């Protein structure tokens, strides 16, 4: 009974993953060797420290107001990076996940996991690969690992609310199956709130 619900939630997750995952916010920036953009020389290290010489002196003499835009904006070429969602699945990973699904249907969870780990190496920052791994571990009756992979997937779901929702539902099912009722309903609340 429990397993059935879990598989439902998980295949729901997969459906979402494979159907359309036009995640907003773009993926990570790929940088070929040497940076690809060779025309631009690397910028010398910048510093926003007040004690570093000239700009500071100049500013002091000008008595800048609080509202004046800073001459050297903090953001331009280099700034700490973040994004709002994980990567999309490339075709290669989708093919491996399909293969893994077939293995799961044949009851071969170890075979499925080995294919999903290949998919994970192809798309290590995509939430659905981890949700699928969680599903395979559920099938292999390793609920502890399944829960961890769901959490890992959730950490990459970002602001993709469909992905978030299927992740939280999957987590709720797994937690309930592990006897963690409070954790399960907490996860359900998260899913409902989306």
């Amino acid at each position, binding site marked *: 009974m429990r397993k059935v619900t879990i598989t439902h939630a998980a295949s729901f997750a997969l459906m979402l993953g494979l159907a359309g995952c036009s995640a907003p916010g773009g993926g990570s*920036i790929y940088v070929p*060797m040497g940076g*690809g953009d060779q025309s631009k020389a690397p910028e010398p290290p910048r510093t926003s420290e007040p004690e570093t010489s000239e700009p500071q002196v100049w500013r002091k003499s000008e008595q800048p107001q609080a509202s004046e835009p800073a001459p050297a904006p903090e953001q331009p070429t280099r700034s700490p990076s973040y994004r709002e969602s994980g990567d999309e699945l*490339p075709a*290669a990973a989708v093919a491996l996940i399909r293969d893994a699904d077939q293995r799961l249907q044949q009851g071969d969870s170890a075979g499925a*996991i080995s294919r999903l780990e290949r998919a994970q190496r192809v798309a290590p920052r995509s939430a659905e690969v981890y949700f699928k791994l969680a599903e395979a571990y559920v099938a292999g009756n390793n609920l502890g690992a399944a829960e*961890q992979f769901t959490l890992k997937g959730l950490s990459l779901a970002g602001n993709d609310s469909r992905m978030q929702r299927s992740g939280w539902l999957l987590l709720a099912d797994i937690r309930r199956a592990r006897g963690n009722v409070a954790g399960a309903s907490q996860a359900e609340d998260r899913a409902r709130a989306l």
Partner: protein
Amino acid sequence: MSKTTKSRKKPSKRQPKNQRSGLWRLLFRFALLGLVVLAGWMVYLDAVVTSRFEGRRFEVPSRVYARPLELYDGASVSASGLARELELAGYRSGNGVKPGTYRRNGGRFVISARGFLFPDGEEPRRRISLVVSGDKVRSFSVVAGPKSPIVRLEPAQIGGIYPAHREDRVLVQLEDVPELLPNTLMAVEDREFYSHFGLAPLSIARAMLANIKAGRVVQGGSTLTQQLVKNFFLTREQTLVRKGNEALMAILLELHYEKDDILETYLNEVYLGQAGVRSIHGFGLASQFYFGERLKDLAPHQMALLVGMVKGPSYYNPRRHPKRATARRNLVLNEMTEAGLLSEQEASDAKAKPLGVSGKPSFTDNRYPAYIDLVRRHLARDYQEEDLQSEGLRIFTTLDPAVQHASETSVSKTLPKLPGSDALEAALVVTAKDTGEVLALVGGKDPSFAGFNRAVDAKRPMGSLIKPFVYLAALEQADRYTLITPVKDQAFTLEFDDGKLWQPKNFDKQERGEVPLHRALSKSYNLPAVRVGLDVGIPQVQEKLRAFGITSPISDYPSMLLGSVNLAPVDVAQLYQGLATSGFNTPLRTIREVTDADNEPLSRYNLKVDQVADPAAVHLVQYAMQETMQEGTGRSAYYTLPDQLTLAGKTGTTDDGRDAWFAGFSGDLLAVAWVGRDDNGPTSLTGASGALPIWSTMMAQIPQHGFSPVMPDGVQYQWVDTEANALTGEGCQNARLIPFVAGSEPDTHTGCNGDLGGQIRSWFEGLFR
């Protein structure tokens, strides 16, 4: 008494008659003794033969493979990297149609993969076509063979675990050997193999006749069985006794075993070459060693060469003496026609072919000693050494030859440029950020030297590499600490119970009064780190370290807050794995799986993840570690690396520059570099000037994704004036976009709303929030 005298007398009476019979008896006794000795000797030889024969069947070294290169649309690989990878896996530049060859035209590759039996199934032979542009695979397609959007090349063999006698072989079974090979072997070496009893007197006579005619040894009369027995002896001296023993043992062997058993053992036993200290035995390995092909895929002219080489593997070595080898091969091809194995036409076609030997042996042994060392330690947890040496296991590791190559060159190029380089040593560990797979390992300045493996065994104080964990412990208390919390950068003295004093100092001996927390980390100031650490509590920091993977005891002294915790570079890599993956501990692995010789899986080492920290707090630490690279102690990385490659990292320097550390990550890779002296002496280096150059030189050689963590639940980015400690607008003075655990952002506002563009942007962003 009387009896004795009697008996003494008696023989003297019958002397003449007794003399004769005594002689007979003596002869009889001698004969009996001889028979007993011979029988004993036979029993002994029999034991030798059977034990050797049985023993030989099982001593097969284990093979260690690199990770297979996966090719698909979007795969990260450079054209030069792909070419190197192909060479390493024994591919030859050619027409791209023959299996094991590839054709390259600029960025366009056509590769004919040989196929490989992976633990999870057979990767069939395929011909694939692809273009490498912008260090990415594009236009990937399967031209011949089963279609698939992703194809694995055969993994390069990177080492072996050998028995003490260093014999290497790939076992083959008779039913898997193409019939032409044993038939050729018999045609050349032993035509009556299936009918003789171990010896072939007629052949011996024929050989003697031929030798007498020629006046020198031109022909041998040894049967395959005798040749096999000959291999059981370790010495090569030729004596009559030895010949006799061989003959006896050959007969014994034939008595005990079937012809097919003997033939199969011969095929696996015969000596066919040498690679350094490693000897090449059997046709299975010889086929890979000379042609880079599986035995079942050999063409007749290749089989002819291998069979020809049986007579003298070094004399007919096709790499060193191609002319001799060709002549010998053609002689064998003639024999094959004579024996009816080939038609005249086939033989002359085969003779017209070049030797077709691969450029160099498919791998040089022990190319990556430090990496293999770590693999062996991991194997030792689950396997006995003697099993590894004799059971022919297949070990699939996670070594990435491209990353390993980049790591070795960056150490060997960078280290000599550092001041005092003669006494310096280095270590470098590279892992895949999200899988924990160890991709490369360098254990010293000479990467090919199998000595002290510093990457694993040099336990050194981690210095400032500990600071992210100190601040993580603080930032997990979002109500007390945010990235802009001002922390005191002022000297102080701690007095211990025993009256001893401790007075930590900044690296530059300066004090700055108050600095925001993010800058205290990115500039690696010591005083704020100690103050924050003491405030959240040493046990809390220890707990973080343990959760992220430190298993050794951690000091209770406050000096631990400045890194008086001894770790090897691989330990640091393990520790930083959790920081790089938003709080998920991912155990480092060097092995994906181990199978037995028949591809039956023995162990799989699966990917594991374990959430050990609040992802929101880790995200804040990642922010400060990115700032380290852009504005802080790690910024010199961008002298070498392109701006677009966003990175996060941390420098570490211990007292008097005894240890220079750098640990950091991109979107794909995590690497830890260490530089110092084996005698733990002082250097003039810091983490930034000693270890970071090695780290960045390595990173610059690998195409990869920038680090850009997904914003976790419960984190919000806000523009803040870090000096005024208040919210502000984009473009205002001291404005920085900084992540906060929701609710912990400042509640005051500078009143500056920034430029118009920023306002419009934030208005739009508000719409979609």
